[in-house]
C-alpha cells in the first residue's frame, strides 16, 4: 500500500476521537450516579443519627 503511514495515522486519529466520544459520557454518567448514591447514603446516615423525641442530645 502506498502512503501506508499516512493512511494508518488518519484512521488512528478517527478511532481515537470516536473512542473518546464513547468513553467520556459513560464516565460522566457513572460519576453522576455514584454521586447520587453517596448523597442518598449521607442523607440516610444523617437522619438515623438525629435524636428521637424525648431523647437528650449528646
Amino acid at each position, binding site marked *: 500500500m502506498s502512503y501506508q503511514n499516512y*493512511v494508518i495515522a488518519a484512521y488512528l486519529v478517527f478511532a481515537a*476521537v470516536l473512542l473518546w466520544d464513547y468513553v467520556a*459520557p459513560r464516565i460522566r454518567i457513572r460519576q*453522576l*450516579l455514584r*454521586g*447520587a448514591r453517596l*448523597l442518598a447514603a449521607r442523607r440516610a446516615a444523617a437522619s438515623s443519627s438525629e435524636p428521637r423525641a424525648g431523647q437528650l442530645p449528646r
Partner: protein
Amino acid sequence: MNPVVRWFHQLGSPPYFDRFAARWAPWAYGTGLLVMAWGIWQGLFVAPADYQQGDSFRILYVHVPSAWMSLAVFGLMAVYAAIALVWRIKLCEILAMACAPIGAGFTLITLATGSIWGKPMWGTWWDWDPRLTTELVLLFLYLGIIGLYHAIDDRRAAARAAGLLAVVGVVLLPVIRYSVDWWNSLHQGQTISLLGESKMDPSMLPALWAMVIGTHLWFAGSLLARARADNLWRESGKDWVRRLGEARQ
C-alpha cells in the same frame, strides 16, 4: 391525543428521557460501529487505489464523512438551540449542548485527517486556504460554545447564552460549504453529490456511503449518551436520580 405528540410530550419528562436514552444509545452505537467497520474494510481493502493519489485517497473515507458531520451537527445544534430559545424547552437545551462536543470531535478529525492527507498530496501539513481556515473557525466556534456553557453556573442561562452563539454561528455553514466556489482554493471542489452525479468512480462509493450512514448512527448514540449525562447532572438531587444510583449499586 395523537400517539406521536404524546410520545414527544413524554420525552420532555427527565426520567422518561433517561430511560429512552439508556435503552437506545447502545443500539445506535452498535449499529453505527458495525456499518463503519464494513465501510472501513471496503475502503481499505476492496475499493481500488486512485490512479493519481494512490492509496492516500483512502483517507477520504474518514475525512469526508467527518467533514459532513461537522457541518450537519452544527446545523442541528442551531435548530435545537433556536427551539430552546423560542419555546424554552429544556430537552432542546440539553440536546443542543450535547451536540457541541460531538461536532467538535468530528471537526477535529476533519482537520487532522485533511492535514495528514495534505502532507503527501500538497506537500504541506497546513495552508491558510479558505476551506481549511473556515473549518478551523468552526472548531473554535464549537469550543467557544462548550466553554460558554460551562462558564455560567445557572444551567438554563448557560444553555441560552451558548445556544444564542450557536444560532448566530450558523451563518458560517454556507461560507464553509461554498468557500471552494467563492474563492481560489487549494482544496478540491465538490466531487460527491447526494442528488446529482458523483465525480468519483462507482466502485469507490459503497464504502463512502457506509461511512456516512455509520457516522450518523454513531452521532445518534453519542447524542443520546451525552444528553443523558447532562440530564442527570441537571436533575442530580432528585429522587428518581437517587433511586437510579441505588439501583446501579
